[in-house]
Every structure is written in structure tokens, then in C-alpha cells.
């Protein structure tokens, strides 16, 4: 059983245990799937593997647990999608994903005006960060804000600095910025 890890340029040359299956002008980076039940540790090991691959080239991470029986199935999985996937690779080239989440530091009291103020603050935080990113996605979530930003590598420090400034200006909110992540949120067409 093969675990699909990422889509990369046709010229990608991964090191073992990762191998590249080439099809339709792209490479599918894959590895033998771990035997037995998938554990949380397996998931984190896989994440670390994809992040190492990200250091050596542009890639579109494949969702966790994308498994196929053999290399013919790998080719079938991307058949006819080469042009679309190459376009997505160009979209993320030179960039990483940063995740930003905003939560209140104190539980809601039921005061609608206070809630509206928090929502407005979260919207303002997103508005302040989005111009620093190449692309952005806001996910529906219980958080006040849960967003992913596709950020040029050389602008990561600027976005992180902006997050710190925003945190200072919003002591009633907790702003968490994590990354850099493979561009999970930008791997599929909208």
C-alpha cells in the first residue's frame, strides 16, 4: 500500500524512503504506508516527512491517509489533472502556509455588544494580515478567526511581527500564529 504525500514538479528527486511516480508532467511523491493502524505518531511522522520535502522544493501536500494499492493507482489518481496541478504548484511556489487563530481570553458573557466587538476585532485582524499574504482562506470555526495565509518565504517574519503587534493591541484576545506549514489550504482549486 502506497501513501501519497505530495505533488511536486516533474524534476523532483526525493530521497528514500520517498519516491517519485511521474505522470502528466508532474511527480507524485509517495512512500510505503506504515503497516497496521494509523496512530497519532504516524500522522506526525508523516507531517515531518512532508515538511522535509517542502524544504527541498515546491509541493502540494496531499491530505493525510491518501492511500492507494500500487503505482498504477498513483498514476490513475492524477490522470488528466497535470495542467491543473502544475498551475497550483505555480500558485504556491516560494510560499508557505501560516495559520492564525483568534480566541477570547475570557469566556463570552452573553453580552451581544461585547460579542460583536470581538467579532469586529477578529475581522480587523484578518484585514491587517491578508495584505501581507499572497492568498488567504478563512475557515468557519468556533474560533473568532481561523485563517490560513499563503505567505512568500521572505515575508514570513513580517507577518509574524504584525501578529505580535496586533496581539499587543488586543489584550482581550489570544492570537496564535503557527507554521510554516505545507500549503494544505491552497493545494486544491477554490
Amino acid at each position, binding site marked *: 500500500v502506497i501513501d501519497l504525500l505530495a505533488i511536486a514538479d516533474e524534476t523532483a528527486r526525493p530521497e528514500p524512503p520517498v519516491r517519485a511516480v511521474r505522470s502528466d508532467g508532474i511527480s507524485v511523491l509517495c512512500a510505503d504506508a506504515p503497516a497496521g493502524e494509523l496512530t497519532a505518531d504516524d500522522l506526525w511522522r508523516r507531517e515531518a516527512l512532508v515538511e522535509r520535502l517542502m524544504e527541498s522544493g515546491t509541493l502540494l501536500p496531499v491530505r*493525510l491517509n491518501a492511500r492507494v494499492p500500487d503505482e498504477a493507482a498513483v498514476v490513475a489518481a492524477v490522470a488528466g489533472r497535470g495542467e491543473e496541478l502544475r498551475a497550483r504548484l505555480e500558485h504556491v511556489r516560494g510560499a508557505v502556509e501560516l495559520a492564525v487563530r483568534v480566541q477570547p481570553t475570557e469566556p463570552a458573557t452573553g453580552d451581544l455588544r461585547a460579542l460583536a466587538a470581538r467579532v469586529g476585532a477578529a475581522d480587523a485582524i484578518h484585514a491587517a494580515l491578508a495584505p501581507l499574504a499572497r492568498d488567504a482562506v478563512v475557515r468557519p470555526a468556533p474560533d473568532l478567526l481561523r485563517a490560513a495565509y499563503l505567505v512568500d518565504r521572505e515575508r*514570513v517574519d513580517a507577518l509574524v511581527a504584525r501578529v505580535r503587534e496586533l*496581539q499587543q493591541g488586543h489584550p482581550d484576545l*489570544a*492570537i*496564535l*500564529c*503557527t*507554521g510554516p*506549514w505545507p500549503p494544505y489550504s491552497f493545494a486544491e482549486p477554490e
Partner: protein
Amino acid sequence: VRDKVLAGPPDLSPFAADERRLGDALTRRINADPDSVERGLAQLVLTIVELLR
């Protein structure tokens, strides 16, 4: 995920509920009906990715 924090408050407890939800998801996975293992596993891995980022 703490290793991936680029900026954040010293107290990450406002986000701690996610870790509890992840634990719940793992428990559900372990107790999954064998007939729905594949579906459950797919849901679990999405949950892990989306909770921790």
C-alpha cells in the same frame, strides 16, 4: 504543535479545547465499528490536521 508556534500568548489555554477534541477523536477511532474503519479514519485524519493548525 507547540514547536510550530511563531507567535502567541504565553498561555495557550484558550486553544486547549482542541487537544481535548483530538483526544476524543482518537478514542472514537479506537472504538470504531470495523465496518466503518475507513470512513472513521478519514474523518480522524482530517480532524487532526484541521484542529492542530
